[in-house]
Structure formats: structure tokens, C-alpha cells
């Protein structure tokens, strides 16, 4: 196969790193306010929706890795080229690159929105975009090793926020959760669908998989990472549900951040301001990984250097940032992105797996015939 990636042993990574990478890639801007969209559909049973969404992601990841296992040294782009041929495969690749670009854009936009609303109302959007892009460029030019390192540190240094999440529990009203299954199954499924924007991120495995050292262990760590993020999302949604009333949640844009405002420590108040600023390092892995995924795809068309790519990419992002400024526009972006992501991340991999295994069976059959 011409499209096979040539990856030296030095460039590969321990499978255990995938735990941190996937966990860091999943947690991003979505967690600031996913309660509103989920509660709108599922009401106080939103936590069941979260579990359901996580379950779907487990299934999808299972199929993703099964597909990738059919091509041990190839990423999603190579698989496309192999299954669909050069022309259609390239089109599918372009779509996936655009998806990654869009994800990058959406993360930056949402973060700027949060900073502008909560911390610095007057800080220029272009300025925040520029500094974030500079950080991404600096990490990107260091290579994949540095980017995965950012994921690792992002996960490790961000763990303390999890403790803060539980602090509002002293104001909790546990009867908000009752009655269980107060909503019908379709609304719960709808709620799970609304989780898409928050839960995506694990699709970076599509492009990262060939870089794993022990391929057979990757699956274990990715599923562990999904469990870990499920724990985080579940904690956040449960605490929000018992702290807020349902009507309140539907009207709160960033319920998680509002949750943090009530926390009072002896030396710090309004801890959400610190957390929002701290979120820079939480979204950095998302940005790096999406940029890198896009880069892998672009490399299939034209052999550009990483440095050239990331500069062009950053300039594009900077320009794209200018026209979209209002909250409604960002909401539209998020909804649109969620729809695309649902198709690309949740439906398409299963379809791809079926096609890939069919092709595999056909190829084996063909080889047998040739031999016979």
C-alpha cells in the first residue's frame, strides 16, 4: 500500500499516554455549559443522558479502533484513500480536515466568549486569539512529543478543579433528582444527542493510533480515558442538578461556572475567575490535537512542513475569527458543529468499519482465488 505511514520507533509513544491524551482531548470548552442543552431535553434525568452518551462513545471508539486495527500502520486518511480510491477518498479527507479545523475554531470562539463574559469584558477577541495561536504554534513546532506532553500536563495540573466541583454539595437538594425516569426515553436520548458537542474529542485516536508503541493496549487506555471523562461529566451534571433547579439550569448559559461562584475559601473567593484563566491549559491540548489532525490530512495532498502548515493555519484562524463576534453567532456555530460532529464522530465510524471489513474480506478472498 502506497499510503502507509512510515513511523520510526523513536517517534512512537507508550500506549499509557493515550489515557491522558484522550481525556485531555475530550474535556474542553463544552463542560462550561453543557448542562443547559442537556437539561432542556432530558430535564432532571440529564445524568442518564450523560451516561448514555458516554456509552455511545464507548461503542464508537470500539469500532474506530477495530477499523484502525485492520490497517496497523495507517491513519484514517490512509484508510479513506484505500477504501474509496484516490478521488472520493480525497474528498472524504477534505471533509475530515475541515471538521478538525471547525472544531479548532469552535473551541477558540467559545473560550474567548467565556473570557469576555466573565473576566475581561473589554479584552479584544483578536488579542486572545493571537496569544492562544502563539501558544499552539510554539507547541506544534515542538512536534507531536511536545503536544502529547501538553496533554499530559493539562490533565495532571487540572485535577484540582475536580475537588472544587464537589464543594457546592453543601447547598444540595437531593430531591431535585427525583423522580427517576421522569422523562420518556426519547427525551433522554435527545439529551444524549445534545451531549455531542461536549463529548467529542476522542476522534483524535483516528490520526494518533499509528503512533502507539503497543497497539494492543491502546484500546484499554482509550476506554479508561472515556470512563474517566464520564466520571468528570457525571460529577458536574449531578452536582449541577442537585444545586440548581431545573428552570434555573435551562436559563444558565455556563452552569458549571455559575456553580463555582458560590465557593468561598478562606483566602480565595470567586474561584471561577481563576478557573477560567486556568482553562487556557485545558483547551490547549484540544487546539493542538485538532490542528495536528488537520495537518496529517493536509500532508496527504501536499507534503508541507509542520511549521509552514501551522503558520498558515493560524493566519486562517485569525482571519476567520474576525467576522463572528456575537453570542448568537457562536451559539449557531456550536449547534452546527454539534450536528456535523454527530455524523462524523458517532455515525460515520460504524459505517466505515463495515466498509473496511468488507473490503478486507474481499481482498482476502481475491488473494485466495489468485493462489488457487
Amino acid at each position, binding site marked *: 500500500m502506497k499510503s502507509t505511514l512510515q513511523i520510526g520507533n523513536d517517534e512512537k*509513544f*507508550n500506549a*499509557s*499516554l493515550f489515557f491522558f491524551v484522550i481525556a485531555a482531548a475530550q474535556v474542553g470548552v463544552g463542560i462550561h455549559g453543557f448542562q443547559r442543552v442537556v437539561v432542556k431535553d432530558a430535564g432532571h434525568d440529564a445524568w442518564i443522558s450523560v451516561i448514555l452518551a458516554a456509552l455511545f462513545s464507548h461503542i464508537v471508539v470500539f469500532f474506530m479502533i477495530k477499523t484502525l486495527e485492520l490497517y496497523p500502520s495507517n491513519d484514517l486518511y490512509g484508510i479513506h484513500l484505500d477504501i474509496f480510491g484516490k478521488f472520493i477518498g480525497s474528498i472524504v479527507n477534505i471533509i475530515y480536515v475541515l471538521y478538525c479545523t471547525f472544531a479548532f475554531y469552535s473551541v477558540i470562539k467559545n473560550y474567548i466568549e467565556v*473570557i469576555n463574559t466573565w*473576566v*475581561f469584558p473589554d*479584552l479584544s477577541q483578536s488579542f*486572545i486569539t493571537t*496569544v492562544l495561536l502563539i*501558544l499552539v504554534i*510554539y*507547541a506544534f513546532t*515542538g512536534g507531536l*512529543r*511536545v503536544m502529547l*506532553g*501538553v496533554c*499530559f*500536563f493539562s490533565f495532571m495540573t487540572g485535577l484540582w478543579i475536580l475537588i472544587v466541583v464537589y464543594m457546592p454539595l453543601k447547598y444540595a437538594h437531593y430531591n431535585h433528582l427525583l423522580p427517576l425516569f421522569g422523562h420518556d426515553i426519547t427525551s433522554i436520548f435527545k439529551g444524549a444527542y445534545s451531549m455531542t458537542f461536549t463529548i467529542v474529542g476522542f476522534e483524535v485516536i483516528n490520526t494518533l493510533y499509528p503512533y502507539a508503541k503497543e497497539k494492543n493496549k491502546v484500546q484499554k487506555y482509550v476506554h479508561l480515558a472515556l470512563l474517566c471523562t464520564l466520571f468528570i461529566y457525571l460529577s458536574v451534571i449531578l452536582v449541577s442538578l442537585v444545586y440548581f433547579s431545573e428552570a434555573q439550569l435551562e436559563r444558565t448559559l455556563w452552569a458549571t461556572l455559575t456553580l463555582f461562584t458560590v465557593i*468561598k*475559601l*478562606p*483566602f*480565595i*473567593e*470567586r*474561584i471561577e*475567575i*481563576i478557573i477560567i*484563566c*486556568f482553562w*487556557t*491549559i485545558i483547551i*490547549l491540548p484540544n487546539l493542538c490535537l485538532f490542528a495536528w489532525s488537520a495537518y496529517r490530512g493536509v500532508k496527504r495532498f501536499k507534503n508541507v512542513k509542520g511549521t509552514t502548515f501551522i503558520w498558515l493555519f493560524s493566519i486562517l484562524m485569525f482571519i476567520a475569527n474576525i467576522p463572528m463576534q456575537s453570542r448568537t453567532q457562536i451559539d449557531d456555530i456550536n449547534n452546527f458543529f454539534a450536528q456535523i460532529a454527530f455524523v462524523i464522530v458517532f455515525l460515520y465510524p460504524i459505517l466505515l468499519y463495515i466498509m473496511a471489513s468488507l473490503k478486507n474480506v474481499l481482498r482476502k478472498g481475491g488473494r485466495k482465488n489468485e493462489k488457487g
Partner: protein
Amino acid sequence: MFREPKKNATNSNEQQNKEEPEKLPIPASKREFLDVLKEKVHSPADLVIKNISATVTIVYLDFLIDGKILNEQILPILEKEQSAPPKTIKEKLPIAEIDLSAELNKSVLEMLIGAVLIHSEGHSELVIAKISSYQSRGLSAPENESQVIGSQVGFNENLATNISLIRRYITNPNLCNEKFTLGKDTMTSLSVLYIDGIASEQHVNTIRQRIEDLDISDLLDSAVLSELIDDNSFSMFPQLLLTERPDRFCDGLLSGKVGIVVNGSSMAILCPYTFIEFFQSREDQNLRWQIATFIRLLRFMAMIISIFFTPIYVAALTFHYEVIPQPLLVPLSESRAIVPFPPIIEALVLELIIELLREAGARLPTKVGQTIGIVGGIVLGTAAVEAGITSNILIIIIALCALASFTTPNYLMGNVIRILRFPIIILAGFWGFFGVMLAFCFLIIHLLRQSSLGAPYMAPIYPPRWKDWPDSFIRMPLPFISRQSVNSRAQSNNQETNENLAKEEKVIR
């Protein structure tokens, strides 16, 4: 990229010259020889020429040689052996390091190191008796890396003494010593030391390669060398360790690092080194593990406080008043009420004063240094608060940060931590906590990008090498610690066989 190691260079005291100077034959006649020699060394005042007899002449540089050996062992025999050929003289002289040479340039070099040249009329060969004596200070306790428990000896400026110190610590035939000479104008000799079988061959090759690729005119200190051979000269962070403690140096060698000792410098280089290891001290292994762990964690906390505390203060007081709880806000604003400057200026000025005090203290003699401490610390501080130029809470914070930065066991790393504060304070003054976070992210990415001899700088945290964690920012009991960190381990699965093979090879040679 990696060459085969030069086997013949190991364990030999041969002088290696990277570029051989043109070969000059030695004139057979005495007069001609002396003329050429004088011209070569520009007849310095300390050149001693002594005619033993009509034929035999000895030449040496005063003060470089051991006069006692010359008087007691060389002169009597030479006086007995009138007009003997060089070969006989060589055999007769009871000196261990003695050589014959037919080449002038090399002989001159030997003389400059401290050898006596013996010329015999009619022979175009010289006897070189190496009886150099070094003027060096005695061994003393290390000044900059003091420790309470543990050995109290430090390196001095003499290469031979330092190597003998190291050999006293490590009695091991596998301890390899490769000699290099660097600097066209100084001809500084330096030794690369490592333990065969423990040190990674790849690291040894890299060091060898980098030293041989250097083209410098002079080398006066190992600190200069460490900057010349490190991975990224643009980074503020030190990537190789400079230590003046032989026990720390040997500890490094035994855990698989490569060491470099430079003549004339009391600091030895150890590499590859990681960020975490700069915050460890040799003493940690001498203490009980609980206490050592506590002290290590304290140091890391001190580092974080030292870098981020002042910026956080500046950020909170400039932009985020709401973060500070009411009871704390009252004393803060009271102390700041009469201060006319914004927090960023106030903090920068105070940080600069602390830096001035430190620099003045470092340059002045010890006795005056104490006065500076009192004048600077007490008089300046109190007066500044009373005059209303700074708030006393900020003085507390700045003093705390300065104190915290001095807990770093490594002076170079401590410097970096202090200097890092200035850009972060400026960022905090402009963009509050967001600016501090930008600096934090930048710092993490920067550290992740660094490497030391190609080994990752942030190991064992990233890439996560769980096996090395017991001896990183904590120290577990000694049985749990693997002696060699993965970073500097020899790349062989079967280490013991390799060691045995290496041993056999040495014996055969």
C-alpha cells in the same frame, strides 16, 4: 551519526591534538636546537637552560616542574652519564613518565605542561621527563553546594587532583577516562568520564562528537564548555549540571551519566540532566526518606511560590479584587492606600531591589556583605514602607519569593527562577490571571521542548517513566529506587552480559 568509540583513547594519558601541527625535526647540534627552541617559545624569562656537560643540555620552564625530583633524581644521573645517547638516558633515569621524541612542536608542548627536555649533542631525539608540579590550593569544603550531612570535600582547580578524587570514590576498572584538548590558544585539557556498561553508549558518543566538533580559541572554565555543548543555547534553563561536589559527581556517574572535568575549573559537568534533578540534592539520600521527601516537596512548592506568587498578587490587585475575600481585602487595601504606584510598578521596583541586594552581596567580601544585608533588608525595607512607596504586604511577599528561590539546591536553576518572575509580573500587570496562565502554558511548553543530550528534559514526569518516580519529586526508601534512571540507562536488554563482555575486552587489551 554515532561513531565507534575510540578504544585506544581510553585509559591513556596520551595527548590528543585535533589538528596535528606541522612536524619539525629536532636539530642534532646543541646550538641550533637552543636557537630553534628559543624562537619557538619567544625566550621567556622563566625558561631555564642548563648545560650539564659539553654535550648534554636540559631545558625546562621554571615553576612548572618539581625541583626536588630534578635535583635528586635527574641531575646526579645525568652528571654520571656524560654524552650518552638519549636512549640510554631514558633507561637510566628513575622516572615513570619519560619519553623519547623526535618532534619539536610536541616536545615544546610537553615542556609547557611541565616536562624537562634533555638534549644530547649529535642526536636528533629528545628525552622528555615529565615531572610537572601543580600549584593548586588544597581540598576544601564546597562553597556553593554545602550540605549538612555527608562528605565535606569539593573539587579544586586541578584536573589530576579531581580525577584522583573521583577514582577514590569509584574503584572500578570500568571507569573510563578519555582525554581531550580544547582551545587553540589555551590547550586546556579535559577528561570525559563515564562507567562503561552503566552509561549509555549513545550519550558518550554524543558528548565525544560535540567536544570534537568545537572550534574555540580558549576555554577557561567548565561553565563555558557546558554552554557550548548543550542542546539549546537559547533556553534560559541549564541543561547540564555544574557541580563542585565529587560525591554528587560520582553519584551521577554511577547512575549512568557522563561527566566532564576541565582543567582549571573547580566545577565538573554532568549530563544528561533533567529538570527534576536540578531540585534534588545529594544530601537527600543521606537523610531518612520521609524527611527527604518532605524537603523535596518543599523545594518544589518553593519554586512554584517563587515564580508565581508575586505575579498572582499583582494580577489580583490590578484586575481581580473580587477574588480576595473581604477580611483579607481590608488589610490589603489599607497597606496600599498611600502607595502612589500601580501594583506592577511597585512589584517590579521591589524585585529589582532584591536583585540588587543579591548581586551586591555576591560581589562583596563576606564581612561587608553582612552590612549590605542589614542596610538593604532592614533599613531600605522599613524606610520604603514608612515613606509610603511600597506596601508592607508586598514586602512580605517579595521577601518570601526571594527566600523561596534560594532553596533551589542549584545556583544556576535558582537564577533562572528569579529572572523568570520579571516577565510574568509584567504579563500579570497587563492581563491579570490570564497573563499568568499564558506564562504558565508557555513555560510548560518550553520545558517540554527542551532536551539534554537528546534525552527528554522533563523526564521522568513526561514522558511518564513510572519506574523512576520513586526518586523524583519524592524520595521513597532506598530499596524501591532503581539505581539508574531510564533517561541515562545503557540501551541494552541484557546488561550483565554486556558488562562482562566489556570487562573481557578490557583485559584482552
